[in-house]
């Protein structure tokens, strides 16, 4: 059966081929195409008989791929590269500004902090970002012993030259030490009454 069909196909192709002959115009076009493709000149477009559909759009390139696909692929590549460059630029732009923001907060912690590690400070810490150029050196604090009057205002203005001259005991006052008069005098309480053995 396949032999019969094969013979019929051969006969069919042979008879149909008699009607298919290349005309002179096609031969000339093919030769021109060959000449143009071998000696390419910029801007020259190979003529196609039909311009509506088919190979002019579909097979214009040497690779046989659709030029539209190649163009879209190129556009996507360009967009991806542009996005990557934008992201990198954004990272390098944001990083220095973030460093600027964090720098003042680093300076808030005074270098000569009298507090002992582990000691609870009764006074609220200054808000971050608000600089206090003269930390109160006359606020002694013992280990685990908060000093009263934490929310009392200071009795004298800070920042004067006498501040640095006040007695300062790192580690807090020991038993029997006299606290500075500036911390206990506002309410008239004798210093000895505040000291606990």
């Amino acid at each position, binding site marked *: *059966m*396949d032999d019969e*069909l*094969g013979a*019929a*196909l*051969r006969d*069919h*192709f042979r*008879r*149909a*081929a008699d009607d*298919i*002959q*290349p005309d002179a115009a*096609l*031969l000339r*076009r*093919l*030769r021109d*195409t*060959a*000449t*143009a*493709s*071998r*000696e390419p000149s910029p801007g020259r477009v*190979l003529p*196609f*008989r*039909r311009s509506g*559909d*088919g*190979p*002019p759009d*579909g*097979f214009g390139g*040497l690779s*046989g791929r*659709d030029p539209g696909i190649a163009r879209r692929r190129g556009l996507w590549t360009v967009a991806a590269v542009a996005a990557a460059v934008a992201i990198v630029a954004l990272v390098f732009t944001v990083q220095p500004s973030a460093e600027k923001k964090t720098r003042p907060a680093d300076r808030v912690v005074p270098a000569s902090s009298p507090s002992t590690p582990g000691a609870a400070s009764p006074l609220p810490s200054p808000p971050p970002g608000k600089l206090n150029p003269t930390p109160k050196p006359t606020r002694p604090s013992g280990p685990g012993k908060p000093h009263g009057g934490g929310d009392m205002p200071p009795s004298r203005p800070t920042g004067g030259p006498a501040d640095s001259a006040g007695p300062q005991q790192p580690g807090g006052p020991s038993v029997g030490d006299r606290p500075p008069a500036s911390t206990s005098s506002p309410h008239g309480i004798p210093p000895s009454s505040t000291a606990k053995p």
Partner: protein
Amino acid sequence: MSTQETRGAADTFEEFVNATAGRLLRTAVFLVYDRHLAEDLLQVAYERVAKRWRRLADGDPEAYARRVLVNLAIDESKRRARRRDLPAGSVADLDRIAGRGPQPELPADGELDDALRALPAQQRAVVVLRYWCDLGEREIADALGISRGTVKSHTARAMAALRAHVREGRTHGR
């Protein structure tokens, strides 16, 4: 390259075009069943051969052109099927959809023609290469870039479809 060499190579290529244009045009027409599209595909195939002419001149440029032609035809068929802007069925299918009966005056050859049009592009390419170009399985596999087993299966399916189509056409024709 001197002018004389260029001129001589161009003459050789023109001779190649003159000698093979008829055969390749018929192959292209059998592949796509569209004369204008076949001419355009043939032009692209010759263009590619011309670009590689210096390497192909010593080998078999016609086989290369045929291979390009077959692949272009299959790609074009896939592209049209994707776009769905053209009917993929055969003329007989269109007649059946339109309510027209099969034409009794069509000879048996016309049935075969319709059956070939209705085949998928790759199966049709296998049939054309086998029964028009008289290529063996290995050459068909090389031309299409597929394995010999795939060539066999395509051939078997195409022949079964052709047989069924012709049988159906004869049944409807009577």
